[in-house]
């Protein structure tokens, strides 16, 4: 995968599709791997797919950066990086075919965000085609860049509502020398306090799981100090995810335990993945709301609940209108 560094992406088809939608006053939904979209009810909107937008543009292992087209499957990226002993810990969900662009657009991160940070922390540069068809690059290939407003952050987590993410430059790091999952009977809060920066602490209906990523001797010493027992990785529910203040997570997980709903709460983070029938999810949504949080339902097949519509503040509305004045980009979380 040593495509020339100078290789550019032909964005004309995307610009044309956006222009056509503008003329027709229609709506578009951007589609990456479809791992989220496929589980949502179909819409009338025309699909703008990034399936053709694949491949590595420039990989510089010595600079710890890689630039790829947004339609590149996350798994392909991870496999390539692994051959160089590197990773970008934005966590592919195995077998789901999700794309780098989709990862950025949804900004949903897994349990390793406790130590590795969120998706947004790994994005150095984005090439975006705005809803009104302007091609914009923000950020750079260097790890620090404060030249102008940080539109990389704006694109990350935008759920396809400000433009099409076309190219992405990601920050990389060496794969940790050792990584292993453990389990323990100790309370989650104690484990989090006693371990030095664990990679993940996950509270599930099958017990508490801990992931350590350190020098092998440190992994052994930490595990012994806290009484961790080797385990396989926990299985993560995929139907819905709740987000609460990390200080309220234990209240949500004990509620799920009592309600006999499969759950995986990211301790220290505040995200909780849940499975369950429609009634259970309605109850989970109510419980999350009581705790000041919210629930995002990602599988329409499992429930008649809509995805949680994000509350829109006037400032976000204005920013969105500045980039997509005709609102041709559909927010899949708020079907019209």
């Amino acid at each position, binding site marked *: 995968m040593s495509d020339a560094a100078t290789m550019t992406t032909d964005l004309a088809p995307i610009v044309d599709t956006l222009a056509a939608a503008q003329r027709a006053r229609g709506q578009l939904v951007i589609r990456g791997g479809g791992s989220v979209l496929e589980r949502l009810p179909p819409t009338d909107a025309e699909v703008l797919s990034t399936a053709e937008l694949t491949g590595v543009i420039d990989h510089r*292992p010595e600079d710890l950066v890689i630039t790829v087209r947004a339609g590149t499957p996350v798994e392909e990226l991870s496999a390539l990086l692994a051959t160089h002993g590197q990773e970008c810990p934005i966590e592919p969900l195995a077998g789901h075919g999700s794309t780098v662009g989709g990862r950025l657009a949804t900004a949903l991160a897994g349990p390793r965000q406790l130590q590795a940070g969120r998706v947004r922390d790994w994005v150095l540069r984005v090439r975006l085609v705005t809803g009104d068809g302007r091609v914009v690059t923000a950020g750079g290939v260097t790890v620090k860049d404060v030249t102008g407003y*940080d539109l990389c952050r704006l694109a990350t987590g935008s759920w396809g509502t400000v433009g099409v993410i076309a190219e992405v430059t990601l920050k990389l*790091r060496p794969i940790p020398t050792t990584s292993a999952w453990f389990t323990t009977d100790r309370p989650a809060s104690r484990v989090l306090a006693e371990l030095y*920066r664990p990679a993940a602490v996950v509270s599930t209906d099958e017990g508490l799981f801990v992931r350590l990523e*350190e020098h092998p001797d440190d992994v052994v010493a930490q595990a012994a100090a806290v009484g961790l027992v080797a385990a396989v990785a926990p299985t993560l529910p995929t139907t819905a995810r709740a987000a609460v203040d990390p200080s309220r997570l234990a209240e949500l997980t004990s509620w799920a335990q009592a309600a006999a709903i499969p759950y995986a709460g990211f301790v220290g983070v*505040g995200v909780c993945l849940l499975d369950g029938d429609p009634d259970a999810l309605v109850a989970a949504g109510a419980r999350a709301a009581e705790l000041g949080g919210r629930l995002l339902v990602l599988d329409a097949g499992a429930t008649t609940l809509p995805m949680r519509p994000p509350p829109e*503040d006037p*400032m976000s509305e204005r920013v969105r209108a500045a980039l997509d004045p005709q609102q041709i980009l559909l927010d899949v979380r708020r079907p019209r």
Partner: protein
Amino acid sequence: MHPTSGTRPRRDLQPTAAESALLTDLGRVLGEDGLRTSALSRATYRRDASFLNADPLAIALPSTREQLAAVLRACRDHGVPFTPRAAGTGLAGGATPTGVGGVRPLVISVARMDRLLELDAANRRAHVEPGLVNARLGRAAAAHGLRFAPDPASQIAATLGGNVATNAGGIHVLTYGVMSQHVLAVELMDADGVVHLLDGRLPEQAGLDLRGVSVGGEGTLGIVVGAWLRLLPAPQAIGTLLAGFHTLEAAAATVGALVTSDRLPDAVELMDARAIALVEDYAQAGYPTDAAAVLLLEYEGLPAGVSAGVDTAARMAAEHGATQVVRAADAGQRARIWKGRKAVAGAIAKQAPDFFLQDVVVPRSRLGEMLDAVVAIGERENLIILNVVHAGDGNLHPFVLFDRREEGVLDRVFAAGHDIVTTALALDGTVTGEHGVGIEKRDFLSQIYTEDALAVQQAVRTAMEPSGLANPDKVLPTTVGCLEARMVPEGAWV
């Protein structure tokens, strides 16, 4: 590329009717103690730590959010722009009170809003007011076994609001990241005095990440009145290493090797021979004075990983021909090694009356080339330039030393600064890594961004700050108004 000496500041002019009306309103809100209008006060707030200076209308020093909101509403009602300011250690002219179209802005200092509102040790976060000094949060966190990772060299003076507004960097960016990664939420006050909580306490965003846009907004998007910051546990072990090299290339090549090794160092600083000589003379940090460059390396975390990292670094430095490798045996030796790095600004102040500090970034693999280029630029312009580099990030801080009394020296200084920036751009780098755009780098943006990209940047700015009164002529190149900043260092104002 640099703003030329513009019109004389309107120091002696009487305030216009609108200005007088504003001052009357402000006096009512702030009292005598909170509003400064004298020539001496205005002189004190003419500039930040750059050379760019201009005359403000007055200085408002609100102590509370309510006062600040009233100040902002008064500016809005009288159509007077404002320049947010904190400690004034910025190096790009961001806090310099330049006006647009002959209107002098009001400087709004948040220095008095400096409380640590909450330190939530259990959940490792802190809620701060903008005027809180970075190092003070560090000390408060340390009492709980925690730390605040962003550590700009100016941390004993610079504020957290200023760090948010500039997306500051520091010594430990390589593994901990820049300021933005440590900002959970921003409370941004708009020109109507309304506070917007950008991103909240939840771990997943609901709308757009306007928090991320506001970080690095340089006072053009509103005033940061509060921030929720992430704290981290203090490391259990720290390993520090000092390595001397005969050539800059060898030091730069060592950095490249370290960055691709299986454990990243947490800090990689490089200083060249001129910087070494200067700080040794001043601070006696124990750097080898016969070296062309030294690397200061640090590994943090758990004991085995740290000692393996230090071993690897020592081996790699030796493989690249290091002449001397010293491992800090204890906290005292570690502090001594860092003392040299931290003494740079003080040492320079002793050596030369003036310095001009640049801030450019290149991909790490181009570091050697960039350092060579800086040396050549110094020779060509007949200037002393010393290099202090956040090498792990490819972020160079060339210090150009001079004496402003020397005839024509400023032209050479600015020419050198300009060449350093264009060289970085040619090496696929960028014009500023951490100091910001302010006024100093503003015109370079037209070289970096396409017209469409600039238009989108402007559109996002207007959407977030529709009044146009917040630090109006900063960050984006303007087409309107005349710039009233003066690049000339002022010698006679205090």
